[in-house]
Structure formats: structure tokens, C-alpha cells
């Protein structure tokens, strides 16, 4: 409890520190978003019994007397098995403050801060992402001029190579009206996809190799923006500060070509200069009209690992996929969609005569949305996925009712079967939930909801278990802004994925 109070005090201090600056600035926007939920999850607990207590089960395999299938490694005195783990309850609450200041005395100068306070109200920190409690996602000052932009501080860079976080500087120069721009940046890097340094103990739950100091990140890019095409070429390297070894060295290109109205060709590729292989790549042709969007494309996916891990040397192979998707709006109120992808892994050059593993798979989804007047919205879809490791198939559906323009009530449900390939585990999940959102003002949004999960993890021994639970959640989003800011809270439900779209 004391810990919770201490963290709450930190949040208060942080917000209090932000507020006076905002109030004095010519223009500001501060979005506070706080979400909390109560959720349980249940895993497994490894157990063992002496070899001589093992019995033979009905199918001839070794089992415990209470019918758990066991594995008895050769030469060991004990056999191992997994029981259903305890139900772990988490109460993650995450408050995000997103502040932008402008008009701070110098025209073109703005300041941006995005920070997050994450707490597990149950105190056990069983939920991922809540440790450490305070995380500074971004905090930088930017000076934007017609011909250049400079930025200093903690920042995230979104580009073809993914999301790169670093503490440092970035400069962008736009070369007149040529459409060319040159981008360069350097700083001390953050761990991939997190606001933490790679040396943080939080990032080492398995006690693995970990760098001793933060890496230096540096990169450059050249972009062209024209009437019919845009392109950007990126180069980025990360270097260990202590050993001067590379942590990564990659280049990428992204292209968006629009030769004729409604048709576009997009493509991208990243190349790993250290492993000398192509990482992710894709190319797609898209036809876009007000009533239809059709996409067809090819892509390759290969994971990327930093070079301070050994995983790159294990030669992860890519898969190659062909995909097609269509979104059709035959009438204004109806949207139909479908997606299909087929993929095949490259040859792994391994011999595994005793284990048969799939090397290809597919994904498909289909769905429909329908608006009945302005008050009712229906969405339903089916998706199915079959591939190495796991498969799944199931339905999703939701109904949204807007009795007024400021209140929406959504009921949703889904059913899913999810068999695993490498473990006896035929999970099925049924969900029914409801969520209400109230937006009494442009600056305030409140939401509350709950869902009932019926989950069954079936397998042919005593390790099968049911795990039903009720999840509750609440959300408050508050927008404080100056008079010069036209931003309003966008509808919260706009990012709800449409059933069957993925």
C-alpha cells in the first residue's frame, strides 16, 4: 500500500510539474489518459514425481497417479509435468500524459512530452509492462523552420526499420522545393520497442546476456516527395559503446508510387548489413475508390535480432506470403471485407525425422459492418488461421448503440478455438462483453465495461482445466488545451479492429 501511495505521489508531482508550464504557454495540449482493469490469468506450474511413482496411463504413456502425463528424461530420478497454475489477478492501471507546448517565445519551437505511469493495483506486478512504474516515452524540444527541423531529447523514430528510440538529436533539412529532404540523427539508444535502456534488469527476466551500457544509435535518411511518388532510403547503425561492436546495421527503402488516380504501388525492404540478408520486404498494388479498396501483394517476414544476442547465428528463415484483401462498400451503410494470405517458409536446411512440422500456412478473414441509421452499428466477422505452432478459428461480433451523440453502448462477443501444434492444448474461448462510453464534452471521455470469458484448455489428461473469469475495465481521458488548439478528442471506438480484418 505504501508503495502504491508513493507511486501515486510521483504521478501527482509529475502532473503538477507539467501543468504550470502548460498554463503559461501560448498554446498547449495535454491529454491525460488513465485506464485500469481487473483481470486474471492462469498459467502452468511445473511439478515432478519420482520415477518409481509413475504409472502407465490408458494410452500406454507414463502418468502420475492423479492422471497427469509426465515426461521422464533418461537418467533422471524424477519425471516432470505441468499442473494448472494459480489464478493470478492483476489490476494494471496505466496513466499516460501527453503534452505538447508551442508558442513558447520562439516561433517554430515546440516541446513534447509523453510519459506513462503504470501500476499494478494488486501490487504483485503480475502484469507485463508495469515495471518500472514511471516510463518516459518521449520528451523533446523541436524547432521547425520552413527549410529544416531540429529536435533534441528523448524521441521515437518511426520508419521502415521499425521504431527506434533514443536520447539524442535529430535534424531534417528540406532542400528548397525539390521535394528532397535529408534526415540525420544520433544518440544513445533505448531497447527495442520499449522506453527502457537495454541495461534495465526488467528486460532480462530469463537471465540472459545483456549489454553493459547503452548503444550509440546513428542513422541517416534521404527522402523524396513528389506528386506521383514518394521514397525514403534509411541507413541505421547501433554500436556498443564499450566494445565498439555493432549491435545492428541495417538499411531500408520505402516507396509509394501513384502513377494514375486510384492506383498505387507501395513497396519496402530492409536489408541487414551484418547478417547480409533481406529482413522484411513487401510490395503491394492497391486500387482505391470510394466504394472499394482492393489490395494484392507479396511479402517476406524475417525476425530481426540485435547482435548482442546469439539468435541471428541460428539462421532464422523468412516466410514468403502472397496476400489479397478487398473492402467493398456496395451501399453507404454496408461494408464487406475479406482477406486471404498464403505463406511458405524458406527451407530451414534441417533434418528432423522424428518431428513433423508444418512449413506453410494461411490466414483468412471475412466480415461485414452495417450502420442502421445513425444509432446502430453492427459488425461481424470470421477469421481462421492455420500455421506452424498454432492455429485458430472463430467468430467476432459487436453491436453499438448510440442513443445520443455523446453516449455509446457496445456489446460484443466472440468464440474461438485455438489448438497448439507442439503441445496438447485445445483451447476454446467464448467472450461476451459490454462497454459504455460517455463523452460529456469535447475534452472528456469516460468509459466503463466488463466481459465474461469462458475458457477451456482441453487435453487428454488431468492438466486440462477450465479458466472462466470476469474482466472489468474503466477509462478516463481528459484533454486540456489552450484556446489556440483546435484538437478535440477523436471518437474512441474508431480504432476498434473490424472483425475479420486481421
Amino acid at each position, binding site marked *: 500500500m505504501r508503495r502504491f501511495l508513493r507511486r501515486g505521489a510521483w504521478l501527482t508531482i509529475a502532473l503538477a510539474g507539467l501543468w504550470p508550464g502548460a498554463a503559461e504557454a501560448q498554446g498547449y495540449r495535454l491529454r491525460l489518459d488513465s485506464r485500469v482493469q481487473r483481470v486474471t490469468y492462469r498459467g502452468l506450474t511445473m511439478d515432478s514425481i519420482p520415477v518409481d511413482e509413475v504409472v502407465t496411463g490408458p494410452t500406454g504413456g507414463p502418468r502420475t497417479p492423479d492422471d497427469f502425463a509426465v515426461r521422464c528424461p533418461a537418467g533422471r530420478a524424477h519425471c516432470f509435468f505441468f499442473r494448472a497454475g494459480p489464478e493470478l489477478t492483476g489490476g494494471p492501471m496505466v496513466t499516460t500524459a501527453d503534452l505538447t507546448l508551442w508558442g513558447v517565445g520562439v516561433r517554430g519551437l515546440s516541446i513534447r512530452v509523453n510519459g506513462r505511469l503504470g501500476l499494478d493495483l494488486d501490487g504483485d506486478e503480475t502484469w507485463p509492462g508495469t515495471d518500472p512504474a514511471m516510463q518516459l516515452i518521449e520528451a523533446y524540444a523541436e524547432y521547425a523552420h520552413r527549410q529544416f527541423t531540429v529536435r533534441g531529447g528523448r524521441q521515437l523514430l518511426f520508419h521502415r526499420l521499425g521504431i527506434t528510440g533514443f536520447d539524442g538529436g535529430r535534424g531534417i533539412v528540406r532542400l528548397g522545393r525539390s521535394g528532397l529532404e535529408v534526415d540525420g540523427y544520433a544518440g544513445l539508444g533505448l531497447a527495442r520497442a520499449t522506453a*527502457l535502456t537495454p541495461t534495465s534488469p526488467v528486460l532480462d527476466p530469463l*537471465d540472459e546476456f545483456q549489454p553493459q551500457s547503452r548503444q550509440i544509435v546513428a542513422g541517416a535518411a534521404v527522402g523524396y516527395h513528389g506528386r506521383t511518388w514518394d521514397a525514403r532510403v534509411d541507413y541505421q547503425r547501433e554500436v556498443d559503446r564499450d566494445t565498439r561492436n555493432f549491435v545492428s546495421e541495417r538499411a531500408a527503402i520505402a516507396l509509394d508510387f501513384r502513377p494514375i488516380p486510384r492506383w498505387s504501388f507501395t513497396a519496402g525492404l530492409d536489408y541487414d548489413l*551484418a547478417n547480409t540478408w533481406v529482413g522484411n520486404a513487401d510490395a503491394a498494388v*492497391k486500387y482505391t475508390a470510394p466504394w472499394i479498396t482492393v*489490395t494484392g501483394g507479396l511479402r517476406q517476414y524475417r525476425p530481426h535480432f540485435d547482435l548482442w544476442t546469439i539468435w541471428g*547465428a541460428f539462421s532464422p528463415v523468412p516466410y514468403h506470403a502472397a496476400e489479397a484483401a478487398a473492402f467493398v462498400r456496395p451501399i453507404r451503410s454496408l461494408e464487406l471485407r475479406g482477406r486471404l494470405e498464403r505463406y511458405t517458409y524458406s527451407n530451414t536446411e534441417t533434418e528432423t525425422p522424428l518431428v513433423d512440422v508444418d512449413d506453410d500456412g494461411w490466414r483468412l478473414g471475412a466480415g461485414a459492418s452495417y450502420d442502421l441509421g445513425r444509432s446502430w452499428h453492427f459488425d461481424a466477422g470470421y477469421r481462421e488461421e492455420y500455421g506452424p505452432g498454432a492455429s485458430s478459428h472463430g467468430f467476432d461480433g459487436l453491436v453499438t448503440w448510440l442513443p445520443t451523440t455523446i453516449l455509446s453502448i457496445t456489446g460484443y462477443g466472440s468464440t474461438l478455438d485455438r489448438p497448439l501444434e507442439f*503441445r496438447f492444448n485445445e483451447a476454446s474461448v467464448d467472450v461476451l462483453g459490454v462497454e459504455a462510453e460517455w463523452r460529456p464534452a469535447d475534452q472528456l471521455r469516460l468509459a466503463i465495461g466488463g466481459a465474461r470469458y469462458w475458457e477451456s484448455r482441453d487435453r487428454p489428461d488431468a492438466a486440462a482445466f477450465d479458466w472462466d473469469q470476469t474482466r472489468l475495465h474503466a477509462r478516463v481521458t481528459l484533454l486540456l488545451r489552450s484556446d489556440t488548439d483546435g484538437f478535440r478528442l477523436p471518437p474512441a471506438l474508431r480504432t476498434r479492429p473490424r472483425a475479420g480484418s486481421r
Partner: protein
Amino acid sequence: MRLRSRSGLLLVIGALAGGTAMAWVTRDRFDHWQHRELFPSCVGCHAGAAEPNASLWPAQTNCADCHDGTIEERVDWAPPAAPRASNLKFTHQSHAEEVLRHSADSALRCSACHTEPGADRMQVRPAVVRSCLDCHGIREAHLEAPDSACVSCHVPLVQAVRLTRTDVSRFPAPATHRAPGFYEEGHGDQARVGDGGVAASCATCHARDFCTECHVDAPEVPAIQALQPDARSLAHRAELRAPASHEDPSFVFRHGEPARREAGRCATCHTQESCLGCHQASPTVALAMHTPAPGRGPGARVERKRPPSHGLDFSDQHADVASARPQSCGACHARSQCLDCHRPNAADQSPGYHPAGFLTTHPAAAYTRDQSCADCHNQSQFCANCHVSAGLGSTKGLRGVGYHDAKAEFLLNHGQAARQNLESCVSCHSERDCLTCHSAVGGRRFNPHGPGFDPETLRRKNPSMCTACHGTTVPGD
């Protein structure tokens, strides 16, 4: 039935109103032609047209001399109490002085204005505008007269204090107002006179209030400020019209450059709100515009719309476009909107980027990476951390405990699965687990290197990686 009675009532009211109006018209018009034999001179009745301090109208008793009910029927007429409301600067007295200076034939001079050319003296009608123009040397039609000509006969609207708003609304529009481009550029060029002045022709019919119906930059435009405020000018409704340049479908994407180059032009019709409606991510672009304020136009209403290029599946398929031209996204989208999806929120009860209940359903998507999980989720912080809590993490070394029990000899034959789904392996297994067998110094020396492995380059880039398995005797050194 109710409808029928209402219709009848309307008809009665209409008939009464129409009859009253007709009667008024009949009484009001004096038939000069019928009286042509009685009045040899205009000034006999309209003495004020020639003599200062005399009345322009005959006395009521003058009519009653004949219209006494015996000689002629009585008439109900009285001279107007005040001059007719108009924006004319003309007065009969001033004209009379000019007339007397040139000729004593006042009757002739009256007919010069009040009859059509060639008509009899007593075929009187309100002043013939063409005659005014001719005398004043104006060759063009009335509403096509040059700017300087208006002041010959008219006072500015603000001085025509007896005109009502309804009167103003009846002002005819000159032909110039219908010319192509008049609303975009034309009217400004015509309105500007000298250094900070405004054309008299504009001021004749308009006042500052009219301009501020549209002009956001009204306080900064000298020609508008040269006009006096007058609410009656709002009788003419002005509507903002998008210039032709805005009709180009690509204008929404291409307006940045002209906006930077000529921000003043945009500021004519747009307030900061116009920019901020879309440019939520970069509010500084709006600084060149004015904020809404009294004395300024409300500005064009800009509605934030999903661009056609986004199609219907853009939320799923925007990576390449966003990578190729990131600044385009930044024009409309606040950075926090990207972070809503591209940063994991531990407390988010999905629906966000993932469907509701994705935690339960994620293995199928994660095994073969439908999307790149690692772009948003740190493998260690998010995946391994949670798997350890769920009892799935391999925290005590590789002991062959048999989690993968659906494949009997998975430990010995996991190579294909591992190379296909290495990220999934890493979400539960540590490097130490793999080095149990795959180390060249402390393990069983199973070679993990497979297709695409480039030892030379890797060793050059990061030799420490090699020593993790090979110790100090890295092959090729």
C-alpha cells in the same frame, strides 16, 4: 377540415391585404397627364423645386379647391412629412440654382429629368436615370458606370441614414459582380484606391460589416478599414466560396507550399481553426492565420475528412506509405495517435490495435508473426516477462521437462520449428538453454548455423557474438 379552414383564412387575409395595397397605390399616384391642362408650370405646385425654403409639394388645400366633393370627388392626400428615403445626394434646391444660372425655363428643366426623352412635359415619372448620367457626362449604363461616377449622385451607404435594411437589400448588383473571378481577386483590386482608401462605388452600397462576413483579415485590409461600420450592409448576404484552386482533388495534399509562400492569401478566408481542424499534430502551422475575433470573419469551415487515398483498409496497411512520407502523416495526425497503437498499454482492455481478448488468442498470430510483434512489444519485457509469470518461461535451464508434449522427440528434432519461429522460442527460452547443446566449447557442439549464415561479416561486425559459443577460438580468426 382544419386544413380547409386555415386555407380559407389565408385567402381572406390575402384578399384584404391585396385590396389595401391596390387602394394605397391608386391614392398615392398623382396623374399628371390628366391634369395637364390645369398646370402650365411645374413650380406652380412644386415650388420647392426652384425656390429655397419653399415646399416641394402643393398644399393639401390646393387639391381641395377642385376636389371638394362637388366639382370633383374628394381625394385623401397629404404631402409627405419628410423627403423620400434614398442614398441620393441630389437636392432640388441645389439643382434649381444651377438651372437658374443657365436658364429661367424651369419647366423645361424639370422635364429634362422627369420625362422620357421626347415625351410631353406632363408625362411625368420619377427621375430618368439615363438623363442624370447624360448630364453628368457618364456614357456607361447606370450600374456599369466607373467608380468615380457614383459620387456624382450617391452618398456612401453609412450617410444614407434613412434607408432601412430592407431598402439596402433591394440595391441592384452591378454587372461587374457577376464577372468571373470577381469574388476571388476582382473585388479586391477594384476596392483598393490609393494608399489605404476604398473605392467610392463599394462604399455606395457596402459598409465594413459586409466585408467582415467573409474577410478574416478585415482589420489588416486598409480598404475595409476605410469603410465605416454599418449593420444595414449585412442585408447583402456574402458567402465564402472556395477558389478554383481548391477544387483540385490533390489540393488537400499540395496546399502546404502555397500556404507557406502566401500565407496572407489563406488568411483572407481562414482562421487558425481552419488549419487546426486537420493539422492537429502541428499546431504551429496555424500561427500565420488569425484567431477568430470580433471584427473578423468567422472563416471557412474546414471539415476533417479521411483522404480518398486512405481507402477502407488503411489502418491495416499504412506502413509503407507512412515510411515513405512520414511528414504527410504528421500533417493531420497527432503523434499521440501513433503511440496509441504503436506502444503497448498494459492496462488497455484491447479493443485498440488488437481485437478484444487478443491475449487469449495471440499464440496463432504470434507463432508466425502475422504482424511484426517486436515493433511494438519488447521481446523480453512483454513476452518473456509474462510467460515467466505464467510458468512458461525456462528459468531453470533446459531440463527436458516436456512442455512440447505433442511432439514426442521435440527436443531432439526442434530445428525446423526453431528456425521458422525463433521469436516464439525466445519468448520462453534463454540463450543459455540453447547453448546447452549448441555451444562449441561447453555444449554438445551441435552447429546451429543454417541458410544465409555469413560468418565473415558477422565476425567483422560483432566478434563478441561469436565468442559466446566459440570462446576465444573463433573459426577463421
